[in-house]
């Protein structure tokens, strides 16, 4: 599992990514903190609009311009260096080589007019410009076979449309692996795949991780992927971190009411459920967040304090942090009374 004695490879500190629009400021990511250790798999779970994808785009330095802006005081430390202070040229060197990303839809992340082989080579050439093309081709075929594409020699000259969705996503995986990254961000990478293909792909990622020791961030809405793949989980809601903990701790002992409710509202393949709990209402609009806790109007435990002020991050256990007023010492005491 995680080598805790070495320092984190990636640290996100008070990340705030805002969109300045004519109608107001949309706080897509609002004060997110987490650390990622080498070889670890971190799951970032949330619904649409929770800020999980914008967090990953912020790390990659790909926040949509010009409306999107990472606010002053935010820090993204990769091996101790703040990525937000890097020039575009320096970021280009980091993207693809140090930190890579796999997106949901392989049809849109591959270029339809180039062969898949060419697209793998393109990334290889980025990392070393003086390579001869014959050795590049060899390495590209090697990568394709590493992501278990059958007959990689003949697949090398295929165009993306000649491949199935699962194959295409493998090619995207090969491109991501081309720079042998230290951090891989998989943003809903298996959502569009069929069940048995998803299973194969997740197994492949795990295998590649064991081989290379890279750290993986899984951005997903699916607790199943978290349960299967992750060491640690961060739950996001309305641009903020609701809870972060080790995976077993989170599943056995969820502290934030949102995490708890979300887990109870997911149907289960492993047992019969008579009635599924459902969270009423819907997530708030991000350009008009209530002053208090963003989950307050859907929370079954809501009380006055929740509506007034956003809760602080509270240590709820070993490596377990949740942002909820119920967990603060003063209110726990009040409740006990």
């Amino acid at each position, binding site marked *: 599992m995680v080598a805790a004695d070495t320092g984190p490879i990636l640290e996100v500190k008070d990340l705030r990514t805002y969109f300045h629009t004519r109608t107001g400021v949309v706080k897509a990511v609002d004060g997110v903190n987490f650390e990622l250790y080498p070889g670890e798999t971190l799951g970032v779970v949330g*619904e*649409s609009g929770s800020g999980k994808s914008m967090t990953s785009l912020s790390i990659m330095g790909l926040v949509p311009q010009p409306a999107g802006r990472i606010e002053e005081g935010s820090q993204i430390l990769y091996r101790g260096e703040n990525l937000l202070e890097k020039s575009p040229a320096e970021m280009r060197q980091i993207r693809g080589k140090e930190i890579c990303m796999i997106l949901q839809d392989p049809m849109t992340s591959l270029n339809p007019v180039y062969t898949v082989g060419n697209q793998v080579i393109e990334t290889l050439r980025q990392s070393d410009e003086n390579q001869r093309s014959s050795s590049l081709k060899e390495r590209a075929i090697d990568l394709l076979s590493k992501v278990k594409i059958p007959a990689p020699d003949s697949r090398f000259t295929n165009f993306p449309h000649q491949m*199935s*969705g*699962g*194959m295409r996503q493998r090619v995207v995986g090969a491109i991501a692996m081309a720079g042998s990254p230290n951090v891989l961000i998989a943003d809903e990478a298996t959502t569009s795949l*069929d*069940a*048995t*293909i*998803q*299973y*194969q792909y997740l*197994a492949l990622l795990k295998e590649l991780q064991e081989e290379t020791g890279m750290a993986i961030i899984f951005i997903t*809405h*699916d*607790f*199943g*992927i*978290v*349960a*299967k793949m992750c060491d640690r989980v961060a739950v996001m809601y309305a641009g903020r971190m609701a809870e972060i903990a080790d*995976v*077993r701790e989170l*599943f056995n002992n969820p502290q934030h009411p949102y995490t708890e*409710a*979300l887990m109870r*509202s*997911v*149907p*289960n*393949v*492993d047992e*019969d*459920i008579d*009635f*599924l*709990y*459902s*969270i*009423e209402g*819907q*997530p708030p609009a991000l350009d008009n967040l209530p002053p208090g806790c963003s989950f307050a109007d859907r929370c079954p435990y809501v009380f006055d304090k929740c509506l007034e002020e956003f809760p602080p991050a509270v240590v709820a256990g070993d490596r377990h942090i949740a942002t909820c007023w119920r967990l603060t010492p003063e209110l726990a005491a009040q409740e006990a009374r």
Partner: protein
Amino acid sequence: MTQAVTDAPTSASNGSGNSIIELENIRKYFPITRGVLLRRLVGEVKAVDGVSFQIKEGETYSLVGESGCGKTTTARMVLQVETPTDGVMRFNGTDASRFTGPERREYRASVQAVFQDPWSSLNPRMRVGSIIMEPLLTNQPMGKHEAQEHLETLLRDVGLRQAQGEYYPHEFSGGQRQRIAIARALSLRPKLIVLDEPVSALDVSIRAQIMNLLRQLQDQYGVSYLLIAHNLATVRYMSHQVGVMYLGRMVEQAPVRDLFANPSHPYTKALIAASLPSHPDIEREEMVISGEVPSPLNPPSGCHFHPRCPMVMERCSVDDPELRQLSPVHQVACHLF
């Protein structure tokens, strides 16, 4: 090897009185032609190849399988937007293909649909009230007052406010739009609603709301559902009967409890093994099936699943397995039984 208990009567032949719709050996072949002037037939895609099942009154029948298995084509034939190449579909005991004029209109009114994507299934230029009432007003002209009453009931039943009938679809979130689509489907008091992936486009916390709503409306209206889904957890929560399809054929069919307690076909087992766990401590039986779903243009001989099956035997590549009774309610098409 045990011999099958009884030889497979198609599910339709043990039909009891209360089935709404019965499909018997239904087939849909799509021709592939080449040439402009002399269109030659060069092949056929056997999208659905001899599928039989029945849907009982007030029950949910689910079709599961990966993309290309024919579940959507089957649903389209039930909706009569696609004409079967062969086979019989009975609606309340009468052959639906013989329906003319008024009978067909009645059939169309009795079978409604809710689709996956509530962003594209609602006309953006119509008010929600008109969207919901359009099917009803087309089928039975009525006075303004009466129509208003109907609309109020429908809005209330799907959990929307009266005033929201005046809004346009863009003013709603995904979950609310799906409620609108459900209200529209219910307006004609149908006997059967085809639900094509009704929750997979929705956010996790909203899915439970819609699933519970669908179950509650089933009790209230006594409507049957034909559910098309790929998520086994959703299927387990929603269904009474489940049919598993692979490359156009039914491979296993059983009541939901039997299917999950005793999955028998290797493909069903693989699907369950590939489904994501609900807790990190759940270890699934390792069941790796290699490869992908083959092209339906040129399906493998014998059992379509044999190239991927871990239990493959010699006869599997030669003989088509028949659907056999494993128990009076449980059918499976596999040579192992």
